[in-house]
């Protein structure tokens, strides 16, 4: 299945050139990619009784594989990702007609799709995490697509920071989970449920994993990023923020439910946060008038319902848990279908009229008949009218809450959250098309027209699928059974029907729809009432996000002012003092009396040439400090370096000696070039600074001497490494120069890192020189 995932990324690479060559056809052609992937996955899924699994070793040393597994849950999500993805690609191709960014949009959408596919197919916790982060990164690019606008950039950064922060928590949670369960394979986790439950890590795992799920799926108190992410172009909102990415948190919760469920903390966190999110977001949606924001808040509410339903589907629960597991699947599928359609309809409405405000959009059914069909079918599906898939989704959710506890928190949350969602469905899907008045068009001239084919064919297709599945739900029996089984952790048999008979759930459903209609009719008085609540938003979690962001930036500024003086001598002073303190402390801590004396005592054979070299170095060093001419100082410094290289020659390290000579030569040249820039030699440092420098220099030099003396006595094991390299240089490395064999063969990766640093330094120098000349040019 690696092939299927990679296909998406490869296709993304070809999207931009294709969009340049065939601008009109790029969307439909690229839509064949997700359809092809879906066909391949369906072939695999239908072809085998047990869930197919493939695995490719990725980092075998760490036990990390690119393992993929296609069970019911993964297949359902793949169906949504690829199916809706194809629709979105066609729509985006038409939506960005004549826009030169079309290729970039299609490419990023494909890359996102492939990442999302990786998330749901992954069967290794690390692979899952990697794809999870890839969805965050690609969604950052998509939300910030209009990067010339500050609003888009801010929204993209906010989404990235919130979901990325959750991603870090998830990483920690996933590592702990693998430790507790003793396996990285997600499919093997459920079998370890007892082990995990007995582990002391269970609670930290639950907290960290849910932090990842809740940030991704925009649960309270992290919900604020999703409405802001509406700064993205409509196709992106429809794809990421209704049908796929925000459902990743729900997916993960559902996926881990068999292994982590059963714990009270897990269950109540899901039910509690889900219920709170559903009610809060539903209430907030009443205050919205912009089409996309209405949909955004209703999406947050629906995600809350889904999270709550996962919490109700306890792995060892009874019939109510089975109902909840089925409800997760049905609600998820129904929501993805109608919400993606409504987003696309909203995009078409705005494109046709230039209006975003739901209050201004009326009477468009004649002008936009096809969009009207899609909007009404999806809107009524969201309302929950029988014969549409949305009805089954809502009915099953109510049934699950009802069976759990007729007056429990889940039931209460549903009764409170559902009527506002009915209002959203009516306002976005139905109201813009009804009414006798002619629609106003933003630019004042002309009338609204139906959108081009590419922009209505997708929404209509999705809406009709919702109708077909609503009329013939038995088509879904296999998918729902197998998906619910994966959520519940035990076999589930689903027998879906259009009508389950007249019972309490139907009554509740009718009451909810009537409640929604009532909210719609008394909207002006409710508007007044909710205005007061809106003031509370000033103290909401988004304020916390803003404070945290500003605080971090302010801290950065203070830190920079304290540490970055801009004076080279101060940096050197800090570096030396720090090194002296750290190394000195270590030496004092490992104090061995007499060690230095013993080391000194071992120096018995002092050769004449050694003495000569030392004298040369000392004289040259003193000359550096006392010189009144820079050239003389540099040459004296070069003499010190050459003397050092002579030491290397004497003690038979020719490679080092050669390097040292060359480095000294080049350094002198560099100094000479640099000094031509400087003003004439002036003695600026006061006596005090010179004394200070002297102290630091003596301390540093003394410390190094002590260190070298002590180092000669340190036993590093049996010197296995050097013996190995000396012995293996010729047989394995084919070279007699051991130093070089180590550099380019045994430790070549280190060398590669070092030359990369060199290359970066070169780029840095260029930036400095160009930057300076650029500044001068501007002056």
């Amino acid at each position, binding site marked *: 299945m690696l092939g299927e995932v990679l296909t998406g990324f490869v296709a993304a690479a070809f999207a931009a050139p294709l969009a340049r060559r065939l601008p009109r056809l790029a969307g439909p052609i690229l839509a064949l990619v997700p359809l092809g992937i879906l066909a391949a996955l369906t072939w695999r899924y239908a072809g085998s009784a047990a869930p197919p699994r493939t695995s490719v070793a990725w980092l075998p040393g760490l036990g990390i594989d690119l393992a993929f597994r296609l069970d019911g849950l993964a297949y359902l999500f793949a169906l949504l990702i690829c199916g809706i993805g194809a629709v979105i690609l066609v729509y985006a191709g038409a939506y960005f007609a004549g826009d030169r960014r079309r290729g970039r949009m299609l490419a990023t959408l494909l890359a996102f799709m492939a990442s999302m596919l990786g998330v749901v197919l992954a069967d290794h916790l690390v692979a899952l995490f990697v794809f999870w982060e890839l969805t965050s990164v690609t969604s950052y690019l998509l939300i910030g697509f209009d990067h010339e606008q500050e609003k888009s950039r801010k929204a993209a950064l906010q989404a990235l920071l919130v979901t990325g922060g959750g991603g870090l928590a998830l990483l920690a949670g996933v590592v702990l989970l693998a430790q507790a369960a003793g396996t990285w394979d997600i499919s093997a986790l459920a079998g370890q449920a007892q082990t995990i439950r007995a582990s002391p890590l269970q609670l930290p795992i639950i907290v960290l994993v849910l932090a990842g799920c809740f940030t991704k799926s925009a649960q309270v108190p992290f919900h604020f990023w999703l409405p802001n992410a509406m700064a993205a172009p409509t196709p992106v909102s429809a794809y990421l923020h209704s049908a796929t990415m925000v459902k990743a948190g729900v997916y993960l919760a559902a996926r881990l439910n068999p292994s982590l469920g059963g714990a009270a903390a897990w269950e109540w966190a899901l039910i509690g946060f889900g219920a709170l999110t559903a009610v809060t977001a539903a209430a907030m949606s009443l205050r919205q008038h912009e089409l996309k924001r209405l949909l955004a808040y209703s999406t947050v509410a629906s995600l809350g319902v889904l999270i709550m339903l996962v919490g109700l589907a306890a792995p060892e629960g009874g019939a109510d848990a089975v109902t909840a597991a089925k409800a997760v699947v049905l609600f998820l599928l129904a929501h993805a279908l109608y919400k993606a359609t409504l987003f696309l309809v909203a995009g078409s409405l705005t494109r046709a009229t230039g209006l975003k405000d739901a209050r201004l959009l009326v009477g468009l059914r004649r002008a936009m008949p096809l969009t009207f069909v899609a909007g009404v079918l999806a809107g009524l599906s969201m309302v929950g009218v029988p014969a549409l898939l949305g009805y089954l989704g809502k009915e099953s959710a109510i049934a699950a809450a009802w069976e759990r506890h007729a007056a429990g928190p889940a039931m209460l949350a549903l009764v409170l959250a559902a009527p506002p969602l009915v209002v959203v469905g009516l306002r976005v899907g139905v109201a813009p098309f009804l009414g006798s008045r002619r629609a106003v068009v933003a630019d004042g001239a002309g009338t609204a027209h139906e959108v081009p084919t590419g922009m209505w064919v997708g929404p209509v297709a999705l809406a009709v699928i919702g109708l077909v599945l609503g009329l013939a739900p038995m088509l879904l029996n296999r998918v729902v059974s197998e998906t619910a089984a994966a959520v519940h952790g035990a076999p589930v048999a689903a027998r879906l029907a259009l009508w389950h008979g007249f019972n309490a759930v139907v009554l509740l459903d009718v009451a909810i729809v009537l409640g929604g209609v009532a909210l719609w009719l008394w909207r002006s008085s409710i508007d007044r009432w909710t205005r007061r609540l809106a003031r509370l938003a000033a103290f909401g979690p988004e304020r916390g996000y803003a404070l945290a962001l500003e605080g971090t930036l302010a801290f950065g500024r203070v830190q920079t002012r304290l540490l970055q003086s801009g004076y080279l001598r101060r940096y050197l002073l800090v570096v030396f003092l720090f090194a002296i303190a750290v190394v000195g402390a270590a030496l004092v801590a490992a104090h061995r009396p007499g060690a230095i004396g013993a080391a000194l005592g071992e120096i018995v054979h002092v050769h004449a040439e050694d003495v000569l070299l030392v004298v040369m170095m000392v004289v040259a060093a003193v000359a550096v400090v006392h010189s009144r001419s820079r050239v003389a100082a540099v040459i004296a410094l070069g003499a010190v370096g050459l003397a050092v290289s002579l030491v290397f020659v004497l003690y038979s390290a*020719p*490679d080092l000696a*050669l*390097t040292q000579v*060359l*480095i000294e*030569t*080049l350094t002198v*040249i*560099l100094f000479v*070039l*640099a000094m*031509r*820039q400087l003003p004439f030699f002036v003695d600026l440092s006061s006596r005090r600074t010179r004394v200070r420098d002297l102290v630091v220099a003596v301390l540093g030099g003394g410390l190094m001497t002590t260190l070298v003396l002590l180092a000669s006595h340190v036993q590093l094991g049996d010197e296995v490494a050097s013996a190995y390299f000396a012995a293996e240089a010729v047989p394995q*490395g*084919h*070279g*007699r*120069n051991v*130093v*070089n*064999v180590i*550099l*380019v*063969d045994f430790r*070549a*990766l280190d*060398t*590669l890192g070092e*030359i*990369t640093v*060199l*290359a970066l*330094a*070169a*780029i840095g*120098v*260029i930036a*400095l*020189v160009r930057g*300076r*000349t650029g500044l001068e040019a501007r002056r």
Partner: protein
Amino acid sequence: MSSIILRTGVRFVTPLMLLLAALLVLRGHNEPGGGFIGGLLAAAGLILQTLASGSGASRRLIRVAPLTLVSGGLLLAAFSGFLAMIGCGAFMTAIWVESLGLGTPLLFDLGVFMVVVGTTLTVIEGMAEGNA
């Protein structure tokens, strides 16, 4: 710093230094030398040109921008590591043609050589240009 003696001398010294640098790289696997040392020596030779005839002289000699040399060297070094992966070996596994005494480590060393020459030239020429 433009003396006729220096310019005339450099005309002989630079080729010699470049030749020696090539020798150091080639023999580096068995005798003292290698890409790093060779690179430093070659850079020193080219910088002599710069000192004698002003900035841009070494650029005219090697005909590519130093930064191109850096990126090319980095790519070459990485490429030498990837070669082994074609044969399903781990990244950076050395491949040797025993009869010729040639192998991917030599390619790697050549990459190191190019990066060192390029970086040194970038730094020194940057300073020299700043002077002009």
